[in-house]
Every structure is written in C-alpha cells, then in structure tokens.
C-alpha cells in the first residue's frame, strides 16, 4: 500500500503583485474586459473526490450554493481570497468553494491536494515581520511602523519609525532594535528588546515658538507577540526611553503600545 504524497501549494504571494501598483489606470479596461486574463490551461485543475463540490455565489458566510459539481469531474482553480477559492466547472460555471471542501479534491495524478496555510510553526520560524502599533508616549499619542528580520527563532533585528503627536509638541522617532524571544514557539511569546535611535521634536504652532530639537535616544523594553490567525499576530509592548538631551539632565519617557503585524 503506497502512501499518498501530499503536494503543497505555496500560499506566498506571487512576485508579480507589485506590478499591480501601477494598474489603477487599467481599472476601466478590466471592467470592460470580459475574457479571462489568463489562458484556461494556466489554472490548476483538481478532481472532485467527495460526492459533490458546492459552489457558492460569494467568498463568505451566508452566500448560497447555486451549483454542485459531481464526484469525478474536474474543476479549475482560478484564484483564492482569504479561505475561499474561485473555481470554474467544466460547463463554465464559476463559484466560490471553501477550504474544507477544496482539501478533499484530488490532483490529476490522483494525489491529494493540500492547500498550504500559515501555522503557528510559521509564526515561530518566519524570517520577516512588519506591523503597526499605536499607543502612549509619555502622555503624547504615538503611531509606529516597524519591520523586522529574524536571525534565528530567538533573535530579531527591527527598524522602527514613529510619529509622535502631543498636546504641546509633535515629532518623529526612528530606532534600531534587537529583540530576544525566550520561548518563540509559544502562542503568546514574551520578548525583551534593546535599542537606540534619534528623536525629533518640534513645538506646536499655537504654543510659544521654541527651537526644534533632535536628540539621541536609547531604550529597553518588553512585550508579547500573540499569534492570531493565518499570517497575523497581535503585539503589545512597553519601552522605557532615555533621551540624551543637550541640557544638563536626560529625559526619561515611558511608552505603551499595542498593534498588529504580519509575518512572511
């Protein structure tokens, strides 16, 4: 008895995605264009192994089933959106099938199809991560964007850019962080961080004019990365900053932030 070998379809985006950026102009063309962009033989074909495959009218809960494809027939998989697949039956009908049913289809050579999805292992081992956090920076509001690269499951390097919006002054901050995760395989994974950067502050226009300042900052912090779903994680952290001012005393600022991120 030979085992079924499972072929995995990568769920990573195709590299051509960035090319879409300039395609806004083509929107009108797309609307008018009724013919499919790709030739029919470029789509993946799978055979229905369950008694039938249910085609829904839309990619989501509640959309009714309008067509079924019987066992043994093949369908073409045109695209995927979240957990739904747009398939085309032999008679030309197109509809959306959920992941649970798609996983029970077979490839042309009779092997089972596995539709890859990000798991908690990817959460632990992913190389790249990017996200957005917001919170409180010493009484001011802060919005931050970051990108990180993991050297190994435990240690990552992150670049941060933040906008600080306060009652008396605004500013921005950029920093480089080293992040250490002690238990990266945990679903709620604690981490510690250390970093340095620059902070630029300018007083608000309605306040008495003061000079803009650019200072160096150093910080330590700790927080949690929490695996949510697919390639998505929640992140909450605390950082304690020391601003090395040109005055006699250094300034200390506490920061609390929450947000979300993707890994890939």
């Amino acid at each position, binding site marked *: 008895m030979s085992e079924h070998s499972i*072929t995995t*379809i*990568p*769920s990573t*985006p*195709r590299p051509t*995605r960035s090319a*879409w*950026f300039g*395609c*806004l102009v083509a*929107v009108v063309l*797309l*609307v008018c264009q009724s013919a499919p962009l790709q030739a029919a033989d*470029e*789509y*993946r*074909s799978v055979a229905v192994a369950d008694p039938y495959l249910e085609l829904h*009218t*839309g*990619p*989501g*809960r*509640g*959309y009714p089933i309008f067509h079924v494809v019987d066992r043994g027939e093949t369908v073409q*998989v*045109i*695209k*995927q*959106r*979240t*957990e*739904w*697949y*747009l398939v085309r039956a032999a008679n030309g009908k*197109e509809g959306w099938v959920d992941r649970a049913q798609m996983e029970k289809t077979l*490839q*042309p*050579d009779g092997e089972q199809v596995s*539709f890859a999805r990000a798991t908690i292992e990817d959460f632990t081992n992913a190389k790249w991560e990017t996200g*957005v956090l*917001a919170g409180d920076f010493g009484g001011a*509001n802060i*919005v931050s964007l970051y990108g990180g690269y993991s050297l190994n499951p435990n240690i990552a390097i992150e670049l941060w850019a933040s*906008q600080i*919006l306060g*009652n008396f002054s*605004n500013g921005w901050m950029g920093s480089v962080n080293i992040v250490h995760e002690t238990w990266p395989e945990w679903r709620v994974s604690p981490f510690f961080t250390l970093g340095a950067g620059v902070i630029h502050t300018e007083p*608000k*226009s*309605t306040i008495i004019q003061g000079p803009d300042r650019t200072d160096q900052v150093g910080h330590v912090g700790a927080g949690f990365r929490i695996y949510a*779903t*697919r390639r*998505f994680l929640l992140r909450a952290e605390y950082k304690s900053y020391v601003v090395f001012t040109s005055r006699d005393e250094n300034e200390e600022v506490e920061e609390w932030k929450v947000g*979300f991120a*993707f890994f890939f």
Partner: protein
Amino acid sequence: MESRFRILFLIAALVGLSGCAATKNLFGFGDESAPPPTAEPPGQVIEPEVARREVKEPAIDREDFEIGAYVGIMSIEDFGSNVAYGARIAYHITEGFFLEGTVGQSEGGLTSFEVLSGGARIISDSERKLTYYNLNLGYNILPGEVFLGEGHAYNTNLYLIAGLGSTRFAGDDRFTVNFGAGYRFLLTDSVALHIDFRDHLFDIDLLGEEKTAHNLEGHLGVTVFF
C-alpha cells in the same frame, strides 16, 4: 445411582486425558515444533514499472489585497466643505476582517469669522490644506448580493471601519481617530465600487479654546483586488 457414577468416571477420565493432552500433545493439536523465524522479510512482490508523473501545477493566484482611489467631499469643522480625494489599500485577513490604510487630502475654506470680518485671516492659505493618513480595522458586517434585473447578480458588503492616524491641518500634525461605514459593490470578482462615510476626529485650539472637531467625509471610490 449408576448414572451418577458414570458421570463421575466420565469427569475423571476427561480431566486426566486433558492433562495428558496438554503436557504430551497426545491429540496432535497445535504446532509440533514451531518453525524457526525467517531471517529475510518477504520480498516485494510487484515491482512498479510505471514512472511517477511529474505534474507541475501552476500556483493559485491569491487576491487578499485591495487597492484603489476615491474622491468625495470633506467638511472641515468651521472651515467649510471642499473636495477630498485619496488612496486606499486593504488587506483581507479573513472573510470578515480587513486592515485598511488610507491617505487623503482636502482643503479648508474661510471660517464665518473670516468672511464677516473682511480681511482678517486666522491661518495662512498654505495651512488650509488638509492631509491625513489613517490605519483602520474593518469588518464586513452585512455581506450580500444585489440583483439588477433578472440576469445580473453582484456581491456586496456593508462594512464598518475604525482606526487612527494623523491629520496635518492649520500648521500642525493632529492625532486623529476616524470611524465610519462603507458599501462595497463588486462589479466583477476583482473590481469593486465603494461608497464611504467617515468621521475624522481631532483636537484643535485654533479658535481660542481646545475642542474636538468632527470632520465628516463622504466619498466614492474604485478598488481592485490583487
């Protein structure tokens, strides 16, 4: 009496014989001598002569991102209404939730005070330009379909969004909270029309005292899934 003896003898005989049978294997049941274990495992009977077919299947196109542009009207509190336009990008996490980033701009007009007083200006013309960015979490609360005549059905979504960002207006960056609702009308599986209504809230102290300004925006947009 006789039958009782007979039964007794029978039981005795049975027990005796079965004992002998167990020790001496009198009846020849079971293995007389167990065969030695074979050293070699049974060989493969059928040699497959069919080469495995190498099937290179094309990857499935994922369409979780949505990008587009919009144009509409934004009412800036105290500064009148003006045309607003911007761009949006969204990532659909699940069939329900999506993340959205928007950047947009509009322009403030004259306040009532400036109109009535004639020449007085509270802020310069360059400071009347309003630009914003926002990062939002959205939820498709009412997915559905609409029908145009008998032959056409279109998927739609009523969604709610809420998020935060920054607005640059009257010379300062202002922390902004925005929330609203929108309607996504999918012309095809990849192209959608949007109608959106949003409220941008930020604090402003331009007219003496600090207050939270409500800046309502309504716009029409087009997006493409990719």
